[in-house]
């Protein structure tokens, strides 16, 4: 009886300790992400270019409007770095988007994520709040 209680206690304690560490780990990681990811990116804006590919962003200029999308495919996050036949195409699994970020061809089914941005006063750079 005593042995059983001790075993149960040890099991519970181990599980608790594990849960505690998972809790701490989750907390510290999320805090770290929050502190390290809150940066703004300033990128050069070239209005002459209809589509500009950057590491994390795609800037699309059309109809006097500048839109910034995340360069990550909504399917599995691959970086989209190419246009083909006027469409944005994902190199990994072939998803296609139009220049408004809408999915034209799967496997992706969500549109590209639009990112908030503001254009600098001189119009030569764009500040992205990614």
């Amino acid at each position, binding site marked *: 009886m005593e042995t059983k209680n001790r075993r149960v206690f040890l099991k519970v304690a181990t599980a608790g300790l594990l849960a505690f560490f998972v809790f701490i780990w989750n907390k510290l990681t999320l805090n770290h992400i929050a502190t390290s990811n809150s940066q703004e990116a300033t990128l050069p804006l070239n209005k002459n270019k*209809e589509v500009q590919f950057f590491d994390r962003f795609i800037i699309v200029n059309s109809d006097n409007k500048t839109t910034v999308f995340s360069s990550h495919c909504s*399917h*599995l996050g691959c*970086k989209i770095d190419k246009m083909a*036949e006027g469409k944005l195409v994902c190199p990994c*699994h072939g998803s296609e988007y139009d220049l408004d970020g809408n999915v034209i061809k799967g*496997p992706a089914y969500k549109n590209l994520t639009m990112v908030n941005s503001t254009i600098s006063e001189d119009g030569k750079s764009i500040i992205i709040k990614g």
Partner: protein
Amino acid sequence: MAKKNDKTTFGTLAVAMFWLVILSGILLAVPFNVESPYLSVSSMIVTNPWAALIRNYHYWSSQFFLIFSLIHLYDHFHYKENIGLKKGLAFRLSIGVLIIFLAMITGFLLKGDSDSEQARQILQTLAERVPLIGESLAFSLLGHPESYQLIYVHHIATFTVFIAVIMIEHSRRKYWPPVLDFVASAIGVMVFSYLFSAPLHDNLNPAVKGPWYFVGFQEILHWLSHPAWSLLLFLVILVLLYLVNSAKGKTVFLSKRSLLVFTAFYLVLTVIGLFFRGERWQWKNPWQENYSYEVLNNFKSPIVKLTPEFDLGTAIASPVIQGRKESCLACHSETHGLTDSHSPEAIGCVSCHGGNPFATGKNQSHNNMILIPGNLATAPQSCGTTQCHPEIVERVPTGLMATLSGMISVDRFVFNEQDNPDELANVHHLGNSAADEHLRNLCVRCHLGNPKTEYGPVDESSRGGGCLACHLNYSPEAEIALALAKDSIVNAHPSVSLAISNNHCFGCHSRSGRISTSYEGWHETTIEARQMPQNDTNYRLIEGERVFVKKQQDVHHELGMECIDCHHSYEVMGDGTLYTHQENQADVQCIDCHFDGVAKTIKAENLDNESAIIAALRLGNISDKEFLVTGKRNHALVNTFVENDTAFLQTKNSKIKMVLTRPAEVCTRSNVHSDLACSSCHSSWVPTCIGCHNEYDPNEPSYNMVANQEQTGGWVEFFGEYEAKLPSLGMRTEGEKTEVIPVAPGMIMTIDKSTYTDDADNSTIFHRLYAPVAPHTTTKEGRDCKSCHNSSLALGYGEGKLEYKITNGKGKWSFSPLYQRDVNDGLPADAWIDFLQTRTGKVATRSNVSPLSVEQQQAILTVGACLTCHDEDSKIMQATLNDFERQLQKRSSACILPEWE
């Protein structure tokens, strides 16, 4: 050994591999730089062959570790019905399998190439989609997106330690493999490492794939719109592994069977992923175009050269190209002659020439090299790679210079194989009809897709050549170097630039419509080369056999303008739309520069990227500049600009700046000639050809211009007369709009189809077709009034005597032709229509072009009647330009107007 293996079921080999992985990993840590993994790995390969060897060793030992671990697993399942491990150990073993894959994939990520970067994104996305802890898990596994630190830590410590612990625990504390297994493994891996290099993507090839063991998974992901579900697959496999190891009875059997079925299924997916998927994961069969480039490229695996065929010092000093080292520059360190944007320091060699940048021997480096880049078949792999000019390379094949649509369509029409001459066609889709064979024998050499196969500058004998057809230039040094080069490295490289001269266009455009020669003032004759007057500057020999005589050059040529000073990049390289004929693709019009009224302009900041780059390369700083825009399709003319309300053109190559003149008042002041194209008045001559005959000779030595090979049997052309004449006038109708345009006798000809062996139609075809022309013999002054109003040639009757006679107070026009009437249709040999008649049906090489109507001829000849007495500069004739009817009413009794029957 065999006996031992039965007992250990390849486990000892896996242990041996594990220790080899550890050993090679420790050595690899010395040259590896986690801050720039791709550069450090490529530097190892190029500048440190021993490091490259140990990298291969690390790679191959880890691959074999995985393979033997999996075989070990399978063998256990195979030989033992119930394994019956304790639950804790079985659980840890299942997790261990997952950790082995994580250790493998982190190793794959640490090479930092484009395969790795995309795999990292996929891993991150999948980890993020684990419920509750996804975000933390993804970050803890992969760290900050721009850093490889955490991945490295997990690879060398977290996962490795875990694998070691599990391995030792489950092998009942056996740390070391048997010596024989260890030695055999070490030697075997060494042989592999020497012969086959570990993969590294060149970051240029568009096909992106994960490691071989996850390619099947990539195939699964490609089918899943919600890839998070794939995580369940992992979970199911781990549970099955756990059950096989720990459960009893039927559960074990079912679990084993499930795993077996899954493994078989996964193997099929892996084969599909490895061998049948290309760029953008599109299906690719081995017999499809570019299979080798898109699919087999992943298997590039050069042998290690411990003593490379170059000086290591040069390799170390070579520049970093787009984040990597290229071995090419270790030998080709002195290459020069390219413009800044294409210099080896900027884009290396592989960007254009392909080959293997990570091989260190000549043969291996040059394997699959593109010796002459820019040919359209390989342009997507060179000029058109992602970082370079993908949009242009995609566009060029749609342009007329690549499709030859008009030429093909008209030819088929003329051979009566097509009802109209305006069907879209493509030189790559020629069949076996009489017309298509005719095209193959005589016409279709001049398309951009015809590959350039020999080194050397573009000259008058050049045809095709893709991007190089226009953009290649040899400096004198490069030409000398080419002549001397034999098995030695050529350092003087030809340039690839925007310096496109008339000579680039000349090879193709001096034929057929002969625009290049007409523009420069040369007219082709039927004189043979040996009959050409010697030392007479009025004659020019082209391609050693065609004799040209001097005529009036185009006024733009006289001013120093070249072809590209009018024709912009979207006209020449296509704009992505398929057009049937030249006049459809042509965008620039006379009035774009010689405009009346307010200039149509675009500011520099609003230019499209291509025009902005070209303008900046040609003009320097373009900010604040305002460029003229074409009226037809709104493309910028980047060598024209407006300064202080005056429009200028600056020639692109020679930089001559000139004021753009406005049209003369006579052109714009009234509506009398408003429906005339500028070129119908402002052309001094146009080359014409009449009396041509075509027949097929089955014994004639001939040429197939598509396959570029000699053949027996082909179409033969017997040409008639070449003459330089003022163009005739025709009507072009587009919708509601009609326009008077210059036309010329393009195809007054017979075709004997009966001689074409494959053709059942035995008829001889006769055609009397005029063609719309763009003469490119522009004059500043327009042609005089009589050259149209009193000219049988202009009206379409052909050469002859056109007379206005007044007898008994009655005026009457009459015409006697110079040429005899043709037996086929009774019209004079050079005529389009009979005197004061018109024709319909098959009359021109376009559906929308027709001769002048009888009413139009009468109207023109009525003015012509006036001009027989009144000088064109006379007050009366000048006044008719404002109001002809009024002048007619005011005419004196001496003025006799023509009467028509």
